[in-house]
């Protein structure tokens, strides 16, 4: 048992968000995301105007995405503690988290490829940009499965004082529902369901961020326990 290891993996979650924030906000200027209804020339101009910023920013976001791996691993560990040796939800979490991390890693990777030769034909830049952003918001479905698994695991904890509180289990189920509309981003170029809209981007982004920091705090408390 390594309590220090558990603490390190837990706090890497919020640190990952810091990397996302610095990478997207002051460097790449990708918050809010580029408008999906922009013309190819407008998208190309974004990448031509801020080539260095986008390259550096997406590099930081790739580091941030990688740091989700230990954080999600720690969530799997605590779920395994809740469930015991037969732990279907812990494994569901581990596998879905892998898909989520892959998307969050590949999306900035495609962005940096887009910024690698921004002088190419604008239509190609637009294509790359579409690929990047649809990849960025599509983890909706595996994220939903992952978060439902976490919620179910918490709710079946039979301890008198559960390792993670039951209200957080319900909160996870609520967050899980919220991630689903992100998939609608494949249908819309404007409005609240487009990849820069309220329901496809901002709500999952804000709730996901709050949820991750909350589970970090709750896991730190649970890590101190020995049962």
């Amino acid at each position, binding site marked *: 048992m390594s309590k220090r290891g558990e603490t390190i993996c837990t706090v890497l979650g919020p640190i990952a968000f810091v990397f996302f924030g610095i990478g997207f906000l002051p460097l790449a200027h990708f918050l809010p995301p580029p408008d999906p209804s922009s013309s190819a020339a407008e998208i190309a101009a974004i990448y031509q105007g801020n080539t260095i910023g986008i390259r550096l920013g997406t590099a930081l976001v790739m580091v941030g995405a990688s740091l989700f791996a230990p954080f999600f691993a720690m969530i799997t560990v605590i779920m395994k503690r809740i469930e015991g040796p037969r732990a279907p939800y812990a494994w569901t979490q581990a596998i879905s988290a892998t898909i989520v991390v892959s998307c969050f890693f590949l999306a900035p990777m495609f962005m940096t490829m887009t910024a690698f030769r921004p002088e190419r034909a604008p239509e190609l830049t637009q294509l790359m940009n579409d690929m990047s952003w649809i990849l960025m918001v599509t983890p909706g479905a595996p994220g939903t499965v992952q978060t439902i698994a976490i919620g179910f695991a918490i709710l079946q904890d039979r301890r008198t004082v559960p390792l993670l*509180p039951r209200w957080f289990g319900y909160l996870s189920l609520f967050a899980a*529902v919220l991630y689903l509309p992100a998939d609608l981003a494949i249908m819309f170029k404007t409005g*609240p369901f487009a990849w820069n809209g309220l329901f496809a981007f901002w709500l999952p982004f804000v709730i996901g961020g709050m949820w991750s920091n909350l589970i970090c705090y709750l896991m730190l408390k649970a890590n101190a326990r020995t049962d």
Partner: protein
Amino acid sequence: MVQLDLLPDAQGKRTYRLTELHKTGPVYMADYASEATRAPEEAFRRLPGEEGIWILVFGDMVVFGLLFLTFSFYRAENVGLYRSGQDLLNEQLGLVNTLLLLTSSWAVALAVRNVRLGLRTQASTLLGIAVALGCSFVMIKIAEYHEKIAAGITLLTNDFFSYYFVITGIHLTHVLVGIGVLIFLILRTRRAALVVDDVRVFESGAIFWHLVDLLWLVIFALLYLTR
């Protein structure tokens, strides 16, 4: 008739046992721990269901509230388009669906009451009726979608129908989840003995189903009826 007994307790807390008196005999309802200073009436004023379920319910209501607000905001900008879209909706099917959900909610409320009385067969039958009504809702909704798609109306026809399909689609997902919850409750009635914690589970499930019903009432008014 209810009866409230003060149980002997050592740790400076008073515990009250609430029992309902029926012709068939007393039915144990719940124990309430209370601070010594609180009046007994205050002690048995409690929230139905588990506390956590209300996080899910209020969170979901806030998200749907945001959906309704964005819908109303865009509708105000282009009332003509939204009205002409509304004219193409099938109000009769909407009304039938409203009645189906209201009746199912009534059956679920009765089922919870029967669970409290220990009448498990009746509770199971009533929940079965609610599931059947919920499934009818789903089939009518699918028929309604089919009618629209056959008439060449899809998610991308115009803004009104984007909202129509997205809002009713997200609600339909809730109905399907709710049917799953009701089936889970039916299986739970087969347990050898139902204790107070089980009553809480039934209340929590019922609260979710009422939420599904309540959301539909607002959706029906907003999409089908508001002129």
